[in-house]
């Protein structure tokens, strides 16, 4: 940059200006700016030391490690799912020791953890990607409405025992957490189709792609049509099921520290069932008729995960869930909105803390059914909750976790659920753990507001009486005090073992107490209403154990045996006049045993067999159900990397067996021997 003396002043300024540019540029070039790799392939140009400094996004949140958990956890992995031959989530849950799965008909299951089996399974919390799917109407789960293609499930985490501190009310006996795969893990196309006996047909079409450089998505549509099953007396019963589902999921890396997930579903289904019900309009009478269940549902969920530093992070989740369900004449329209916040951080070198808060509002609109109505017929409930949990490292191999949840619900006000767990790593291969907790089941809408007509009683004077189950707005929450001890060991390189034992004390369980009869004042013929009012005058002491193992017998063959034992003692309090207060203890089997075997026959052929043995259900008021043994088997053939054929036989040991009895006016059907073939094409 030379300048002539005559223009020195002007050029002087620009010379200095330009000099500064050059110096800045030179400095800039000298500063070791790591040239940002523009594409993934450029990562291979970095040397090892630089590769160690690249910041990554990891959508996997701080996951609970099974080996150091202070609770009885079982994880159903993708291999378990793909090789099980199961076609629905309830069928998958059979493999978890401690869970009792009893199929009532083609689309209805009674599922419970550690006892209290009934159609409503009101003591288990079920979630899909953090969205609660139990219905506040009954505290139960409508399994027919939960449609997650098994190919999209990342894993299912099942905690047997109370999860109240982390997950809130209704996680009394356990938590089932269904986690779907990130959109990044389901890229490309997938088409699967299955057809089999019992007129079963299913199809799934899915495609996943990228959005710009920062996001991934998948969209899917699936349809299933399952045929009618056999009734106990041999005739065919209407329990056919058509369902259609469309869904999407998208995952975004907004920045190295921010991940966003948005997902949603639309669902529709129509199912048949045969019911034995009262018809109350006009003169009450009893009838057996074919009922149609129809469901329309939709949900959308968003979650933002933000990483602060060194494993500390926050998470904010919002979801909306709405459905219209018509069953037994009752039409339920429900909408739920939920906001949840969570922050996990480390304090010093010894404390891992998680805390958070949430708000949920649910509102319903109920139209009376054949024999069920709710008073009032519209209601909006709010739930406020907050929790904190601290995992404290007492010593290099000893952790103590203490926490509590505090909630306020519209039925019983404030509730608290504290828990403590001690985990001791005896050696690198063995862990001993113990826990104590208090958990509650918040009353459901039905507990407070239901009026269900269940039986007709002819009166001495020639008139009619109708027995009506009546909800009680004074019900309190059911309470559980639970103590558990467990042991996990990697006995040899090939054999791992997991033992959990528990002792659970329940208070405030439901009983049915006689009320004062009154004459109905409805328009139409008068009849006597004989109320049976819900009360909380029963208690229980349940105890038991679950044992399971994973054993690699050879490098081609591995087996997973499991056993669970449950002893229930349920009794009415002295104040109760309910003669059947303890009957629910007869609804769960005392012993269950299972063994699953996986064999890699050849490079492209594998064969899995599962045997489940479920003990007898003695009479809980609806008849007894004999114990049964169920054998399922699957043969899988892999052609290249993209095509998979499988043939699955279910219930191979007997032509048909009952897993449960009639329940809440629904007549049960039998689980039949069946075969189906499935083809899956990935491209």
């Amino acid at each position, binding site marked *: 940059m030379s300048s002539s003396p005559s223009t020195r002043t002007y050029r002087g300024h620009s010379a200095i200006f330009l000099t*500064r540019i050059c110096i800045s540029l030179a400095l800039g070039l000298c500063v070791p700016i790591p040239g*940002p790799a523009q594409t993934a392939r450029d990562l291979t140009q970095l040397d090892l030391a630089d590769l160690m400094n690249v910041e*990554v996004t*990891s959508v996997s949140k701080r996951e609970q490690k099974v080996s150091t958990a202070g609770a009885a956890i079982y994880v159903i992995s993708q291999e378990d799912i793909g090789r099980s031959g199961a076609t629905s989530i309830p069928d998958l849950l059979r493999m978890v020791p401690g869970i009792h799965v009893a199929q009532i008909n083609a689309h209805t299951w009674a599922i419970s953890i550690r006892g209290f089996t009934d159609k409503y399974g009101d003591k288990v919390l079920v979630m899909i990607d953090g969205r609660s799917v139990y219905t506040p109407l009954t505290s139960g789960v409508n399994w027919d409405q939960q449609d997650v293609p098994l190919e999209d499930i990342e894993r299912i985490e099942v905690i047997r025992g109370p999860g109240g501190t982390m997950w809130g009310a209704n996680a009394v006996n356990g938590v089932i957490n269904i986690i779907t795969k990130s959109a990044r893990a389901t890229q490309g196309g997938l088409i699967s189709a299955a057809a089999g006996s019992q007129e079963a047909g299913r199809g799934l079409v899915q495609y996943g792609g990228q959005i710009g450089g920062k996001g991934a998505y998948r969209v899917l549509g699936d349809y299933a049509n399952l045929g009618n099953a056999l009734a106990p007396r041999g005739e065919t019963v209407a329990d056919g099921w058509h369902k259609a589902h469309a869904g999407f999921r998208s995952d975004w890396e907004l920045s190295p520290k921010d991940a966003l997930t948005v997902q949603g579903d639309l669902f529709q289904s129509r199912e048949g069932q045969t019911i034995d019900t009262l018809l109350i309009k006009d003169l009450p009478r009893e009838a057996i008729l074919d009922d149609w269940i129809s469901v329309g549902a939709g949900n959308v969920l968003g979650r933002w995960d933000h990483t602060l530093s060194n494993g500390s992070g926050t998470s904010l989740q919002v979801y909306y869930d709405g459905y219209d369900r018509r069953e037994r004449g009752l039409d339920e329209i429900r909408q739920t909105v939920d906001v949840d916040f969570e922050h996990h951080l480390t304090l010093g070198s010894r404390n891992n803390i998680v805390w958070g808060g949430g708000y949920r509002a649910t509102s319903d609109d109920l139209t009376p059914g054949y024999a069920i109505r709710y008073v009032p017929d519209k209601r909006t409930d709010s739930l406020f909750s907050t929790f904190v949990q601290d995992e404290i490292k007492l010593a290099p191999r000893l952790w103590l976790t203490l926490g509590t949840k505090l909630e306020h619900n519209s039925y019983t006000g404030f509730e608290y659920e504290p828990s403590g767990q001690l985990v001791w790593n005896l050696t690198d291969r063995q862990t001993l753990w113990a826990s104590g907790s208090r958990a509650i089941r918040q009353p459901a809408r039905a507990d407070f507001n239901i009026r269900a007509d269940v039986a007709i009683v002819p009166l001495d004077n020639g008139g009619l009486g109708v027995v009506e189950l009546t909800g009680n707005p004074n019900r309190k929450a059911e309470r559980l005090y639970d103590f558990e001890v467990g042991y996990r060991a990697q006995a040899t390189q090939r054999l791992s073992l997991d033992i959990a034992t528990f002792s659970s004390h329940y208070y405030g369980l439901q009983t049915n107490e006689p009320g004062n009869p009154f004459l109905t004042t409805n328009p139409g013929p008068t009849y006597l209403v004989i109320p049976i009012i819900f009360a909380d005058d029963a208690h229980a002491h349940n105890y038991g154990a679950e044992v399971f193992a994973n054993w690699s017998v050879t490098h081609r063959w591995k087996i997973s045996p499991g056993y669970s034992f449950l002893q229930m003692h349920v009794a009415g309090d002295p104040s109760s006049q309910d003669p059947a207060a303890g009957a629910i203890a007869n609804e769960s089997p005392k012993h269950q045993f299972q063994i699953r075997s996986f064999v890699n026959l050849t490079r492209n052929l594998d064969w899995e067999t599962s045997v489940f043995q479920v003990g007898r259900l003695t009479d809980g008021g609806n008849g007894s159900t004999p114990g049964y043994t169920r054998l399922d088997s699957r043969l899988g053939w892999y052609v290249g990397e993209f095509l998979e054929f499988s043939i699955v036989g279910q219930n191979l040991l007997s032509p048909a067996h009952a897993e449960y009895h009639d329940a809440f006016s629904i007549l049960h059907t039998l689980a039949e021997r069946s075969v189906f073939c499935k083809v899956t094409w990935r491209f």
Partner: protein
Amino acid sequence: MSMWLNLAFLLGIGLTAHAQGPAFDEYQVKAAFLYNFAKFVEWPPGTFANANDAFGICIVGQNPFGSTLEVMVQGKKIGDRAFAVRRLRDTQQASKCQILFIGAAESKWTRAALEALKGANILTVGETDDFTAAGGIIGFRLEGTRVRIQIALETAERTRLRISSKLLGVAEIVNRQP
């Protein structure tokens, strides 16, 4: 005016120096590490039957990389050999593998799989917390937002693989627990 320009330039340089590159997925970085392992580990003579046999990177079970690994090594060579990425369903077919990766989804069966490979001249890589304790040679760990590697030197010394000191220098050396 010039002062503001100076500020702008310095700010500009400053921003460039601190600019975050595009976000990288954890598995893109892990795939880049696998490529580097091929460069910084020596396999014993006789590993390959022919001069044009491909260098095998195998993934057992669930594949968390998607197509990232194939894209990353496409067209690249190690010595004169091209890469081949293979997906295996179990360790039975591991004879064509030089590097074998077992993802976190397989954790129930990892130990048994590693025992089947004990002593083989295969570099076993995993990402579960107890991978090296279970018999694996290299384990990935996430420290905050960075990927770290742990090398179980004793396990490696029981094979005829030779790990370069450059790789040992950036790793945390752990010894396999008996």
